[in-house]
């Protein structure tokens, strides 16, 4: 795969625009420098958005998680222990160790980045229980829960009556300490409806 093509794929992965069927094959063929590219794209994306939004990245990790889970169910031999120790014993890159330094704000994003790096060091034919690596992530479960909660809130927001929002914006925030912000909020909200 050409460098440009790889970068497009990384960008698509970070934007959750890559098909889940492609995630595995792409991860397995990744290069070590992909992590740096992914991190750089992530930073650019964050800068353009102006913030680190956890919710934006959760779907990526979820997609990776689900795809891997499918794959591992098919590939994992019965009785294979699902432990981090097992993984580290192979002498391959330690996912857990890689994750620790980046835990925090961009944990979910890091999952996607980590996947790219980790699998570049693995034998693509190895039947290692890759899904278990994800299950071991200290951040994965809470982030998935957060994603579910966020989804519920987003769905709920559709039921918020825009007239109530308009009345709040128009009549409730009338103090000078926010300058023109309340008025601009009202104009912006109407514009976005």
């Amino acid at each position, binding site marked *: 795969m050409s460098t440009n093509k790889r970068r497009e794929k990384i960008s698509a992965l970070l934007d959750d625009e890559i098909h889940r069927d492609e995630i595995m094959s792409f991860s397995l063929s990744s290069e070590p420098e992909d992590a740096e590219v992914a991190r750089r794209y992530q930073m650019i994306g964050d800068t353009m958005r102006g913030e*680190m939004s956890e919710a934006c990245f959760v779907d990526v990790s979820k997609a990776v998680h689900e795809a891997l889970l499918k794959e591992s169910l098919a590939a994992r031999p019965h009785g294979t222990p699902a432990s981090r120790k097992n993984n580290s014993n192979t002498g391959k890159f330690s996912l857990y160790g890689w994750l620790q330094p980046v835990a925090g704000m961009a944990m979910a994003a890091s999952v996607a980045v980590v996947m790219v790096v980790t699998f570049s060091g693995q034998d693509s034919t190895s039947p290692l229980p890759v899904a278990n690596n994800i299950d071991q992530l200290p951040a994965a479960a809470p982030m998935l829960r957060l994603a579910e909660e966020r989804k519920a*809130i987003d769905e709920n*927001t559709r*039921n*918020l*009556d825009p007239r109530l929002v308009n009345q709040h914006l128009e*009549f409730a925030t009338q103090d000078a300490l*926010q300058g*023109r912000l309340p008025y601009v909020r009202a104009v912006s909200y109407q*514009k976005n409806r």
Partner: protein
Amino acid sequence: MSFCRNKLVKISTALFIFLSGTYSFADDLFDMLKRMSEADQNKNYQGTFILRKADSLSTLRVTHAVDSNGEWESLESLNGESRKVFRFNDRVISVFPDRKLLTIRHTDEKQSLHQQLPDNIDQLAQFYSMERLDDDRIAKHQTLVVNLKPRDQYRYGYRYWVDKTSGMLLRCDLIDEDNMVVEQMMFTELDYLSAAPAQTFDLKQFEQFKQQLVDEPKVSAQRPEEAGWKVGHLPKGFVLTQSTMRYSQQPPAISSNQLTDALSKKLPADLLHMVYSDGLASVSVFIETDHGEENHLQGEASMGAMNAYGNVVDGYVVTVVGEVPAKTVQQMAQTMVKLPE
């Protein structure tokens, strides 16, 4: 308008006296608040600013002018659907060039073009710690930066960047409990003008547009004790500042030569709107009869800095909306109590 200015000076003086014993930067803060309020009203300027929320970024162009007829302001969205909003004294005129449509709305008589300082501003220091940060430069203008940090988790933090020369608010950040910016308004370009740019406010160019009057039917104010509702566990510092009956149904837009009064008389005011404020943050509580519709909000909703929570209490739908953390709206909605009649 003079009433507002007198009030502003009175409150600002009180704030100055209050703060002068506590903060070394009281002079700056007093000066900032006073000039921030007045700068918007008295200056001619033109600029571009961004409004960033969690999931959206809008760019708007603003032109403000004062002439013998009063105050003018034009706000134009530079992305999304083409739209211009003019404010001329008590009128708000929205122009949609793509649809060749112009809507006119009259604002509340009591609501001036520019907001006034809140009555309970002297209590702010109880709920926010204030500090002055290093000066900064916004849109080529030197600004002083003031940080208002909440003392609990029921309100956001505010950070102001104020033009040191003019007093204009050039940037305002809302900061949540995780120290993340949840909303930001910032000028990227600002020019002060010596005279009002009349061309900007020439509405004759829209004469051929379809015109609609979109005034809300008149609302009736209610005394707080008549509202019949109260918040059981109101976060500290928030007080009831408004209690009004409004209309839950939107009247259809009508042409400007029709009378709104006839329409408004037919509609019952069926929506209680109570506003609570701590002097900086405002929270609206809406209460209406539950008609069994499934699509009213139940639980939490969120849009950028704004959070909302819906609940049903004694056969009434309660919706709490405000630019405050989710915890605040949830607590208020879940502890609403209907008082015995």
